């Protein structure tokens, strides 16, 4: 094996256990790792500046090519030819693959990508591989991302003439805590320290808050609260946020998100153009890869054209003797992707509902991300928000990275004499956090969209008479049953005094600090008192590292229901 292109720094550096908050004199840079494109921005002392690569690009394709022994990414790579990117040697869509198991539908949708994604459907990480000298060489999404981040880092270091260590990254709203640890892992491999992982629309919200504050200063307007709905749809993910902004404080009222984006639209259209796509490409031969790449290029092109014109003619050779020649109009395209658009509507509705905001109260609608160019997307968002015009003060493709750079400056303790950095984001948890109880039910302790930092507790009790031990299995998600959620970790509490079921009090407390670190505290207290029977347990989550589904199954196999707990129906009087 050749020398890896990344350096592994010790894990302790990324755990954030002891954050030396004042020890960061440097300004953290903001990175927006998109499914399809990446950008880097930094606060230059007076404003946010996007960095450019040697080819003068502000947005770089997110991919890594494994051609020879040394991989190279889209930051420096001279590959301009899409055909070469889609020839099997390049890996992209890391953001759709990272931290997902091979039973995930999102992973399965990646099977038609022009490199190897091999899910075995057993609940472990899928094998991904690139074609190097006619051999499928396996890698991992973390490694690919790390290689890419190393390039981004080198580019920033050359331009800023200093070492870069601290970064603020934007992440999709729907990322699980496990996925966040994978992003942190990739950063650690690239020698980067994550100051903050910001859900993408909250980064946009921060930029919006800054712009509003400046408008207030300039126009001498009132500093009253403004509510913005932020809709961010890129290639891999769709996110919605509702923020209430006043005086530079951006309060995230609600977040919603899903792994749905331009990639799904592309897949739908590819399957429409070539109905037997899956079977055709299942053996991943050289010729099939080539055809897959060609189909992808032609489909992408058609989608882009359909944003400006109402119909497009598709005419290309798959390279295997078959040709695709037809016209596609916008109505057909929209009908094909009806489910995608419905999902977007659902996310907006859910976000409005969770934020308890009426569309009439929304002051601005901010549309960002690559898919905001699609007329149907724009129309559906504007239609749901009952207005004609969206907020035009920001570049839809640069808003997220600018917000991340602002957060990077604020989190580095930089202040601006003009007050441009007098900003604060009050974040919310995108997903509910809870434990398994009452059989197989997921009982949330911190509901989704709770303001961070947060600390909440609930009382549970034993499910059996004389039960001496109990399993605390922690999940994240919105499903009613535990198996519909992400497993974060588990631990056992012991020393429960023998008693009839339903009488011991098991207190479970969840704590999220402002850096989004989750701790679960649990223990047994004597009924009617606050005295712990044995020392409480404090566990930082997530503790699972791989094969999440398996751990829950193993626990079930080992213990059945004997260590189950139930929600406490009657709390004894103090």
């Amino acid at each position: 094996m050749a020398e890896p292109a990344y350096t592994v720094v010790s894990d302790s550096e990324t755990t954030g256990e002891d954050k030396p908050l004042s020890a960061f004199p440097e300004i953290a840079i903001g990175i927006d790792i998109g499914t399809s494109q990446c950008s880097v921005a930094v606060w230059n002392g007076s404003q946010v500046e996007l960095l450019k690569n040697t080819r003068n690009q502000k947005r770089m394709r997110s991919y890594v090519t494994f051609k020879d022994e040394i991989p190279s990414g889209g930051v420096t790579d001279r590959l301009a030819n899409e055909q070469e990117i889609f020839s099997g040697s390049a890996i992209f869509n890391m953001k759709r693959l990272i931290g997902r198991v091979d039973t995930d539908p999102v992973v399965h949708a990646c099977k038609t990508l022009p490199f190897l994604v091999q899910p075995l459907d057993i609940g472990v990480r899928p094998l991904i591989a690139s074609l190097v000298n006619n051999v499928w060489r396996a890698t991992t999404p973390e490694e690919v991302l790390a290689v890419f981040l190393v390039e981004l880092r080198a580019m920033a270091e050359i331009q800023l003439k200093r070492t870069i260590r601290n970064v603020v990254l934007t992440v999709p709203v729907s990322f699980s805590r496990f996925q966040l640890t994978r992003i942190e892992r990739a950063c650690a491999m690239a020698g980067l320290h994550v100051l903050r992982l910001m859900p993408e629309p909250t980064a946009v919200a921060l930029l919006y808050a800054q712009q509003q504050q400046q408008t207030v200063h300039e126009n001498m307007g009132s500093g009253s609260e403004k509510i913005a709905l932020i809709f961010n749809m890129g290639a891999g993910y769709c996110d919605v946020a509702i923020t209430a902004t006043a005086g530079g404080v951006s309060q995230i009222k609600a977040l919603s998100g899903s792994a749905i984006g331009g990639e799904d639209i592309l897949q739908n259209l590819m399957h429409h153009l070539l109905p037997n796509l899956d079977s055709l490409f299942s053996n991943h031969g050289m010729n099939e890869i080539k055809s897959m790449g060609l189909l992808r290029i032609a489909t992408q092109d058609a989608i882009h054209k359909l944003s400006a014109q109402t119909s497009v003619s598709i005419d290309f050779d798959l390279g295997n003797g078959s040709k695709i020649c037809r016209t596609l109009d916008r109505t057909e395209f929209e009908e094909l992707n009806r489910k995608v658009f419905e999902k977007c509507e659902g996310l907006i509705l859910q976000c409005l509902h969770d934020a308890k905001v009426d569309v009439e109260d929304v002051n601005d609608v901010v549309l960002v991300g690559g898919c905001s160019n699609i007329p149907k997307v724009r129309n559906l968002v504007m239609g749901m928000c009952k207005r004609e015009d969206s907020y035009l003060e920001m570049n839809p493709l640069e808003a997220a990275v600018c917000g991340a750079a602002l957060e990077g400056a604020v989190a580095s303790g930089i202040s601006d004499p003009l007050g441009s950095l007098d900003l604060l984001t009050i974040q919310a948890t995108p997903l509910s956090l809870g434990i398994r109880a009452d059989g197989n039910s997921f009982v949330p302790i911190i509901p989704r969209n709770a303001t961070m930092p947060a600390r909440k507790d609930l009382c549970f009790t034993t499910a059996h008479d004389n039960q001496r031990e109990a399993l605390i299995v922690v999940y994240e998600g919105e499903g009613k049953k535990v198996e519909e959620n992400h497993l974060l970790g588990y631990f056992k509490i012991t020393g429960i005094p023998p008693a009839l079921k339903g009488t011991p009090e098991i207190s479970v407390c969840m704590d999220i600090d402002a850096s989004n670190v989750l701790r679960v505290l649990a223990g047994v207290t004597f009924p009617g008192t606050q005295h712990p029977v044995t020392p409480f347990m404090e566990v930082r989550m997530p503790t699972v590292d791989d094969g999440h589904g398996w751990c829950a199954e193993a626990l079930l196999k080992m213990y059945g229901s004997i260590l189950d707990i139930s929600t406490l129906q009657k709390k004894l009087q103090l």
Partner: protein
Amino acid sequence: MSCGLIPGSDSRFYLYTNPILPTRRSMTHLPKTSFLIENQVGSFRTKTAINDGFGFVTETPFRLLKTSFLNENRGGSFRTNAAINDGFVTAIPEMSFYELLGISQGGTSSEIKQAYKQLARKYHPDVSPPDRTEENTRRFILIQEAYETLSDPRTRALYDRDLSKGLHLAFSARKQCQFEEGPEERGKWKTHWESQLTELGRRSMDKDSRRNMSWGARMRRQRNQSSAE
């Protein structure tokens, strides 16, 4: 330890906070209990009497920390986290949510929002000096709870009712459980609470409103009601 100060009335100290957000380095702790904060935004000036609700904490930070450890029975096991909930609540028993936010009981919703954002800029851990992060996190969580309760007309009505009975200490309207409510119910929500609001005066405990509180909050209410009887 006493902190029986009535916000917005006596013992106020004039303090000018410029619009610069206190950063970790520039933030200095404020020694008095009640401030008149002059909020300058552009040419628009508002004067709001803000009692930060924690003045006594800044006066005796170490004593409080110690007391909260002692009062907190679980403290030993919660160790460094020192039980944000109970430890802190027992340390400031007289604080109502209005006092926490430093507004009067008749405060409008915009006053609540404004007070909340002012206090967030002061106590949010992101803008706290490193040595006060933990303490300010606890404060922020309490401020957040006060804000969430008072900014929702439903929970505010419930809280006011408890407050008039002297039961406000028991009240803990946690962030509402959103799992039972589907988005389709959302439209009905506004008309719903209006009718509920009037009903609540008569009914001792309205079933619908209870459903929207967390289970823990309901239990705490129930417990405290029965112990008060």
